[in-house]
């Protein structure tokens, strides 16, 4: 999509400091966009490196060519494809791509920088304390009790600082974000400046002049450690606490089917807000099911296919503008007349579908309830008495599965969910429900309604790699009215942010004794 390059030009081309990996990303995304255009003509071309979600999607799109029986034949890629891959190949390529390096260069670079800075910070106070003993031991005053007490305080403060820095900075990252984390970079620069200035002062005033007052030197080292702890406190506030207070309400809409959710976020940069939104996406949004979108697409295709407008006059005609106008008016008028039947069809089709789904659901519920009655949990005493036909949960699930398999398969086909659940996963779920004493209704719950994306296995997600598209820089903070996109291969999430208004609350006191009531009558008396 060419709009992609202009839209996100800022985020792609201005990060010059990041060097080679940027180029790698750009070329990969260009490949993705190219292959996406070709995909619209229902052909699959595989560029190197092969982008795995692309193929995963085309196997689902193959359903448009075939009918519902796709669930049975999962191995071939249909359409006019130059290469054909089986499902196992796709999964293997997925794993390879994940394991291979992509943005890892940048991650290791920042990690080494952080470790170096950490070591520098940790060893500086120790160096301050040790260097006088090494360089001018004879001139140095002996350390009294107060001074030795300061040693203990330095030791403990350093230990706390070590633990705190590990807790805040060195834990494994949850996600890889496109741009550097601005606050962390600023804090690193601040710490570096701080330590460098302390070293400067130390070098000039203490090393050069070979100060004998050792207590003063120890106090200097203690003041450095205190200041570092305060900087760490600032880091906690900036990185963790600042975004806890809700400040913006973001509205997230999925572009394919319009599912919308609202979240409250604090003051975050756009990339961190996007990360929070994606994490909530996996929990809140029902799984993306491309099979449900085919109906509206076929309707749209029918609308377009019905009308063909030809321009019989030459292209250089002066009246071409007026003609085009009248053409479009004619098209709209014809379309309006045609629409008399299509909404009717839609209504009856939807009613019919609803009826069919309910019938299948009723059959399914009855079949499952009957199947569950064949199984009974054995108690402890019975287990010792009669070791007859005893099964573990997996075998029990396999035993009762055939009686409900047909009804379940038909229901999944009717609701177009059959590609989300494999037979293996259904049996696993059944064994799980049996083990945990769940009722048939609890077992069926995950099949009757499409659950959140995390509920399904990874290869059904169709939502693995996210691209952030934003007009404002992604490291700038969220503002009122900010709009950005989180694009996946098949769909995108449109995010709009709105500021939570300032709330003015006032207080009113009501005396509990002031609650009094009267009876309102209207009686009629005959005289």
């Amino acid at each position, binding site marked *: 999509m060419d709009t992609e390059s202009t839209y996100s030009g800022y985020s792609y081309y201005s990060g010059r400091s990041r060097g080679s990996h940027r180029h790698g990303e750009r070329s990969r995304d260009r490949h993705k966009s190219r292959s996406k255009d070709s995909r619209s003509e229902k052909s699959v071309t595989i560029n190197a490196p092969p982008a795995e979600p692309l193929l995963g999607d085309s196997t689902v799109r193959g359903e448009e060519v075939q009918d519902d029986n796709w669930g049975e034949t999962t191995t071939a890629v249909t359409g006019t494809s130059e290469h054909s891959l089986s499902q196992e190949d796709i999964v293997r390529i997925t794993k390879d791509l994940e394991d291979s390096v992509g943005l890892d260069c940048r991650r290791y670079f920042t990690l080494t920088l952080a470790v170096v800075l950490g070591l520098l910070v940790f060893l500086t106070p120790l160096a301050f304390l040790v260097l006088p003993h090494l360089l001018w031991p004879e001139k140095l005053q002996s350390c009294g009790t107060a001074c030795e007490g300061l040693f203990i305080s330095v030791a403990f403060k350093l230990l706390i600082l070590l633990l705190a820095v590990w807790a805040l900075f060195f834990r494994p990252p949850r996600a890889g974000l496109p741009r550097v984390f601005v606050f962390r970079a600023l804090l690193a620069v601040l710490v570096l400046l701080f330590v460098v200035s302390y070293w400067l002062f130390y070098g000039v005033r203490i090393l050069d002049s070979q100060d004998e007052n050792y207590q003063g030197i120890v106090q200097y080292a203690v003041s450095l450690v205190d200041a570092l702890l305060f900087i760490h406190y600032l880091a906690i506030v900036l990185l963790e606490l600042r975004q806890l207070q809700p400040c913006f309400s973001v509205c997230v809409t999925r572009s394919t089917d319009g599912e919308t959710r609202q979240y409250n976020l604090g003051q975050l940069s756009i990339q961190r807000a996007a990360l929070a939104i994606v994490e909530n996406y996996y929990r809140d949004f029902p799984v993306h099911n491309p099979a449900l979108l085919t109906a509206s697409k076929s309707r749209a295709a029918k609308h377009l296919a019905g009308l063909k407008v030809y321009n019989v006059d030459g292209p250089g005609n002066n009246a071409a503008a007026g003609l085009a106008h009248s053409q479009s008016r004619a098209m709209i008028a014809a379309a309006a007349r045609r629409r008399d039947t299509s909404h009717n069809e839609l209504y009856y089709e939807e009613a019919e579908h609803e009826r069919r789904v309910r019938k299948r659901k009723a059959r399914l519920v009855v079949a499952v309830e009957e199947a569950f009655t064949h199984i009974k949990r054995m108690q402890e005493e019975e287990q010792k008495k009669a070791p007859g036909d005893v099964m573990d949960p997996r075998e029990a699930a396999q035993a009762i599965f055939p009686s409900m398999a047909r009804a379940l398969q038909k229901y999944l086909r009717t609701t177009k969910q059959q590609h989300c659940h494999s037979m293996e996963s259904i049996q696993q779920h059944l064994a799980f429900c049996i083990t945990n004493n769940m009722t048939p209704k609890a077992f069926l719950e995950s099949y009757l309604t499409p659950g959140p994306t995390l509920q399904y296995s990874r290869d059904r997600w169709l939502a693995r790699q996210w691209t952030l598209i934003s007009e404002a820089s992604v490291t700038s903070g969220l503002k009122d009215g900010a709009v950005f996109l989180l694009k996946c291969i098949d769909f995108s999430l449109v995010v709009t942010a709105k500021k939570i208004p300032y709330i003015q609350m006032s207080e009113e006191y009501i005396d509990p004794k002031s609650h009094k009531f009267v009876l*309102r*009558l*209207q*009686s*009629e*008396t*005959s*005289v």
Partner: protein
Amino acid sequence: MSFVPGQPVTAVVQRIEIQKLRQNDHLILGFSIGGGIDQDPGQNPFSEDKTDKGIYVTRVSEGGPAELAGLQIGDKIMQVNGWDMTMVTHDQARKRLTKKNEQVVRLLVTRKSLEDAVRHSMSNYPK
């Protein structure tokens, strides 16, 4: 029909004289009243002003003494035998109308059609 607190109430009234009829052991007049200062004026279907807490005639029985005397449904009773009915409770109004030793009750009633008739006739005369 409505009143301004502190100002005298003016209305065009009709004098109606009802002879009480003896029925078994009671003297009846043949109509029902509603309203009163202890009642909810908003539920009165006959009043124009829904804050009017006066006594209204809510039903006139067929062929009864009230109908014979010319009382109509929806009339507001202003006086009963000289006693004011604009600021009484429902029970007080009932008592005034059903005194056992009175054979005749003389009511002053008002209704909207009276006001309209007077205004209409006044406007016909040029000043």
